[in-house]
Structure formats: structure tokens, C-alpha cells
């Protein structure tokens, strides 16, 4: 019985266990890995993906998923940059870009709950449509040279710390607390665990699902702001393919595709693990093409762990 509890704790935190082993191993065997500069690099690389993963995780926890995150990121980057380049104030531009993300989320939520499409179809539509809109607005061109204050969140530092890293930590903290200490957060989990039971118990499923997608849209847009700042530019092709990375990170972190199970800190662990692996492969000058293969193996591994975990807690007749 005690061994079982222990095993369950290990499995529940498997991503941190694996990440620690990976970090320690590479501290010895990968030159230039365990330096402050490199670890800082890993964190910086994690920040944009990490912010997108928060939104994706909210959707996954509620039993849905959001393919449109990467397109929303690009749209927001383009919208904000265009406005700021055309003389709009920094603050209003940022507000407008966040709103554009929220709008995409609202459309997703409405397509799912009011029109009755499933999450795959609904967000596939916005995934394609929003990317098209982003490309259309700037006719496929990249916008260069943004004002420094607009780039602060993506490229600035506060004392010694890059703002992106602080944002990453802050957002994970806030959203984790939202999920585990508030009624709304509890409802997100319950809707993901059993949507029918949640509805029959009187939870407003429409409101929960729409809110989750709107939050996902806001977060993707915010990631777009950070990315534009980091690269001092905005391209309608920003984040291409990122949705698969985001889903991988969340799943590797132990967030169940079936909804209702997992947590944000674990998803962050997934993000850090993926970034560390890319980083190590880089340091060893392995061709980046292999990263995909390794990621596939990790997802397989994560899914096997998940079913093992489920078997451990189930009642035995």
C-alpha cells in the first residue's frame, strides 16, 4: 500500500523526475550545458511556448483542444505591430492585440458551444482562417523595427532577469492558482473530467468552455507580443507549427487528452524538458530534424505513463 502511494507520487511528478535526471546527466556529459548563460537560454526559449501552453492546457483540462493558438499568436503580433507603426499608442496597441486574441477565442467557444461543432473542427477553421487573416492584413510581409517600449516584454530585463522569464513564472503562478483555488478553476477540471455530470450538477458548461477558449486566445496573443518584442519584428508566419509543440509539452507534462487530469506546473515541466532537449541537441550539433523524432518518442512515453497511472488508482473489484 505504501509502495503504491510512493509509485503514484513518482508517476504524478514524472516530468520533474525525468527533467532532473536529464539536467544532471547533461551537466556531466554535455560541455557548456550547465552554465548560467545556457540555462538562462533554455528559460528564454521556453517562455513563448510556455505562455501558449498555459492556454492550451486550459483547453485540454476542460476536455477540449485548441489548434488555433499559433495562428492567434501571429495575428496578434501583426495587428499590434501594425497599429504601433501607424502611430497608435503602445498601450492601446497592446490592448487591441490582446482583444484580437480574445475575439478568436470567443469565436472558437461559440462555434463549439452554440453552433455545436467539435473542438477539432472549430479550431481547425480558426487555425486556417486566422493565419490567412494575419497574412492578408500585411500581405505576407514582415514588419520590422518596433519601438523599444513595445519590445520591453520580449526583450527587456529587470535588474538581471529577462522580462520573458519573469512573465513565464508569473503567468504560471497566477493561472495555476486560478485553476486550483477558485470555483472557476474547479469547474474547468470538472467539465473536463465528465462534461455530462458537470452539466447535470448545475455547472454552466457553456460559460466554462467559452471562458477557457477566450483565455487561450488572450494568452496566445500575449505570446505574440513577447515574440514580436524578442525578434523586434512581426511576421504573419510567427509560430508556424507551434500548436504541436504546445500539445506535446502539455501531454509530456501529464495533462490528459481526455480532460480533467493534470496541472499547469507539470505542463511547464513538459515545456522545460522539450526546450532542454532541443538545447542539448543543439550543443551536440545534432541536426534539428531529429528533434521531431525524439519528441514523438517522448509523447509515446508520456501516454504510456498516463495509462499506468490510471491503472494504479482504479478500484479493483
Amino acid at each position: 500500500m505504501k509502495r503504491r502511494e510512493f509509485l503514484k507520487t513518482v508517476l504524478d511528478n514524472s516530468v520533474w523526475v525525468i527533467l532532473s535526471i536529464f539536467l544532471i546527466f547533461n551537466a556531466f556529459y554535455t560541455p557548456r550545458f550547465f552554465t548560467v548563460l545556457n540555462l538562462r537560454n533554455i528559460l528564454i526559449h521556453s517562455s513563448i511556448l510556455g505562455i501558449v501552453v498555459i492556454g492550451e492546457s486550459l483547453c485540454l483540462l476542460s476536455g477540449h483542444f485548441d489548434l488555433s493558438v499559433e495562428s492567434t499568436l501571429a495575428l496578434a503580433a501583426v495587428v499590434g505591430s501594425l497599429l504601433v507603426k501607424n502611430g497608435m499608442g503602445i498601450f492601446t496597441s497592446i490592448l487591441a492585440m490582446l482583444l484580437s486574441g480574445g475575439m478568436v477565442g470567443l469565436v472558437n467557444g461559440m462555434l463549439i458551444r452554440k453552433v455545436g461543432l467539435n473542438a477539432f473542427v472549430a479550431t481547425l477553421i480558426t487555425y486556417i482562417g486566422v493565419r490567412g487573416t494575419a497574412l492578408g492584413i500585411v500581405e505576407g510581409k514582415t514588419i520590422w523595427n518596433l519601438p523599444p517600449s513595445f519590445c520591453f516584454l520580449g526583450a527587456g530585463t529587470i535588474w538581471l532577469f529577462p522580462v520573458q522569464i519573469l512573465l513565464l513564472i508569473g503567468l504560471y503562478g497566477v493561472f495555476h492558482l486560478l485553476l486550483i483555488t477558485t470555483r472557476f478553476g474547479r469547474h474547468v477540471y470538472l467539465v473536463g473530467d465528465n462534461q455530462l455530470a458537470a452539466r447535470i450538477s448545475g455547472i454552466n458548461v457553456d460559460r466554462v468552455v467559452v471562458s477557457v477558449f477566450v483565455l487561450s486566445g488572450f494568452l496566445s496573443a500575449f505570446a505574440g507580443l513577447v515574440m514580436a518584442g524578442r525578434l523586434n519584428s512581426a511576421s504573419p508566419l510567427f509560430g508556424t507549427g507551434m500548436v504541436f509543440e504546445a500539445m506535446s509539452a502539455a501531454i509530456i507534462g501529464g495533462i490528459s487528452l481526455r480532460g480533467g487530469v493534470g496541472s499547469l506546473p507539470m505542463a511547464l515541466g513538459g515545456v522545460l524538458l522539450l526546450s532542454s532537449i532541443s538545447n542539448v541537441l543543439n550543443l551536440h550539433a545534432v541536426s534539428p530534424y531529429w528533434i521531431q523524432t525524439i519528441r514523438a518518442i517522448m509523447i509515446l512515453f508520456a501516454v504510456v505513463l498516463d495509462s499506468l497511472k490510471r491503472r494504479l488508482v482504479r478500484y479493483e473489484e
Partner: protein
Amino acid sequence: MLLQLENVSKSFGEVRALENVSFVLNYHEIVGLVGGNGAGKSTLIKILAGVFPPDKGRIYLEGQEVVFRNPKEAHNHGIYTVHQKMEEILAPHHDVTANIFMGEEVTRPLFRSFIPFIKVLAKREMEKEAEEILSRVGIRIDSVRRPIVSYSGGQRQAVALARAIRKKPKILLLDEPTAALGVKEKFQVLRLIRRLGKEEGISIVIVSHNLEEVFEVVDRIVVLRNGQVVGECSPSQATKERVVQMIVGGE
């Protein structure tokens, strides 16, 4: 009359689940709803619980017409339900407390003094209350922090029952509440139902296949067949054979 259904019909596509059903529940009354599989018992319960609206017909509560657009509105009128199927009741990967409080979580202000509108879940209070209610139901659950998947069918049903009686309902609807229970648990739950009905004055509709237990706890039996009410009797005046005959039909 506490609750009255008037000419209620409900179809699912081609299937006519209920046809012109009229039904009455009096104050302090326990009614047994019996009938074969697919007779429409669960459909009747779900209409009363606000899970879906009837196609036709009216519902009156204490003489006033009511329309339940969702389960929450039924809750607000004091109607609580234990549905038949586990997948309609419980969130399997959540702990017992989370399930008992599902949709009605208790919150407290995070900073009582300066920003009272930020509310967080009152986990400690909910756990304490969950333990109290479960001890009232009388089925052993070793920890309210373990997920539902780790408990047996009977224990799951106890959790569902605990949720339904937590707020002291005016009307309690129980759809086959003893189906998954062992002999001892069944006895305990029946005793609880009788106590809720007789001592606490809660009006109860109980669906059951087990005529033995129906005769033991109810004041009145209503028989459904093919979506219609085909008979009604009191257990003190009718025999089980007579009720069985009404359930299966024919002479």
C-alpha cells in the same frame, strides 16, 4: 399537492419515452415509481430534475407553474436528484469532496478585510462537511480525498446520495439508488430514505426494480409501462403479484 405533472410527453426522435403522463407527489410522501426497462422512469426523473424540458405538458410546484431550463433551476426550487447512471453523476478523477460539492462549491474571501470579492474554495470546510454527510449516509469511505475511481459502485452511489441530501432538499428524486449496493448497504440506505421521508419530512420519488424494497419504504406505488402511467396503488392494499401484473401488462 407539492408537485404535479400534467400531461407530460417526451420523445427522443422516433422513441416516445413518455406519453401524456400525469403524476402527483404530496407533502411528506414517498412514492415508488416502478416499471420495466425502457418504461420511461428515468426520463420522468430527468424532466423533474431539469436535465431536459418536456416536449409537452406542465409542471406545478406548490400550485405554481414552473419551468426548469437547467438542473440549477430545479436545485433552486429544492429539487435534488440521484441519477441512475454513474456517468451522469460523478467526475471519476476528482476526489469525494469535489464530487459531493460539484457545482455548489463553498468559497470564502481570500483577504477578508480589503478585497472581499476575490473568493477561493474553502477546501477545509468542504472536507469536514463531506465527512459529516457521509457518516449520515452510513457508508464507509476511508478518505474524502481519494478519487472516485478508487471506490466501489456502492460507495460511489453513497457519494451521489450524500450530494443530493447535503442541502436538505424539499424533493428528493432517487433513480435506482440501491442498484449497486450490497445487502448491508442496501439496508442502510433504505433506512436512511425512510428517515429522510418520515422524520425530516422530505418528499421522495424512488425508482426501483426491487418490489421487496418498494413495498417496504413507499407510501404509494405508480406504475409506468411504455411511457404511460398504467396504474397506481398503495402497498398496504395491493399485493406484489398485482403490481407485477401491472408492470408486465396483459391480464
